[in-house]
């Protein structure tokens, strides 16, 4: 139940909440990362995620386990998309259910923040002008050095 997955298929928005449903829980927080139609002034047509699955799965599971441990969660799970993906689609989905809402918000935020900087996943944007570019994670670019792990 507390799982991290990678999929090349469409991520349906209700898939996690059904799995994490629990009558002992009063709060459920879900984060959805949607594919935007623009980035830094460029019009984006679609995205491609390259995922190195053996390590992404291992590291993603670690992040989920950390969140469960750290925030005393009942349940948490996440799914990340791989391959070509269209505008408006879900690129990443995170769900957390807990008895009370404070931990659900904090844990959901923790999971998505960590997924974005620790997983071997790369995003290529395809622009309206025909160009395509690998997009750097903003925090990396700003920090200008590798992350502490």
């Amino acid at each position: 139940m507390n799982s991290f997955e990678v999929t090349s298929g469409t991520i349906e928005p209700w898939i996690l909440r059904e799995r994490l449903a629990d009558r002992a829980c009063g709060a459920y927080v879900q984060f959805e990362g949607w594919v935007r139609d623009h980035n830094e002034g460029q019009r984006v047509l679609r995205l491609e995620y390259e995922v190195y699955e053996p390590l992404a799965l291992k590291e993603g599971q670690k992040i989920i386990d950390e969140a469960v441990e750290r925030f005393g969660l009942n349940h948490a799970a996440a799914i990340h998309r791989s391959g070509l993906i269209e505008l408006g689609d879900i690129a990443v989905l995170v769900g957390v259910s807990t008895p009370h809402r404070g931990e659900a918000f904090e844990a959901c935020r923790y999971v998505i923040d960590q997924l974005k900087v620790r997983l071997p996943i790369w995003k290529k944007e395809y622009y309206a002008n025909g160009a395509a570019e690998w997009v750097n994670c903003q925090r990396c670019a700003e920090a200008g050095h590798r992350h502490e792990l």
Partner: protein
Amino acid sequence: MKIHVRYFAAFREAAGTAGELVETGASTPAALFRECAGRHADLQTYSASLVAINDEMADWEQPLADGDEVLFFPPVAGG
């Protein structure tokens, strides 16, 4: 010693290859990367990048062993 090197995403495009078997005296991923960058002009820097050895996240100064598989990950951008 012999090291299997793998390049991902922008690194693969910069190196022009997904991987190679190299004979090297480099004792750390950092030294190995500099050596590879000498052969592939577009492979400029590992700033903000990650490295893994044998499918475990690693440190740039961790010692290498003969037969290791070293994965060079350019800055990640999940989500």
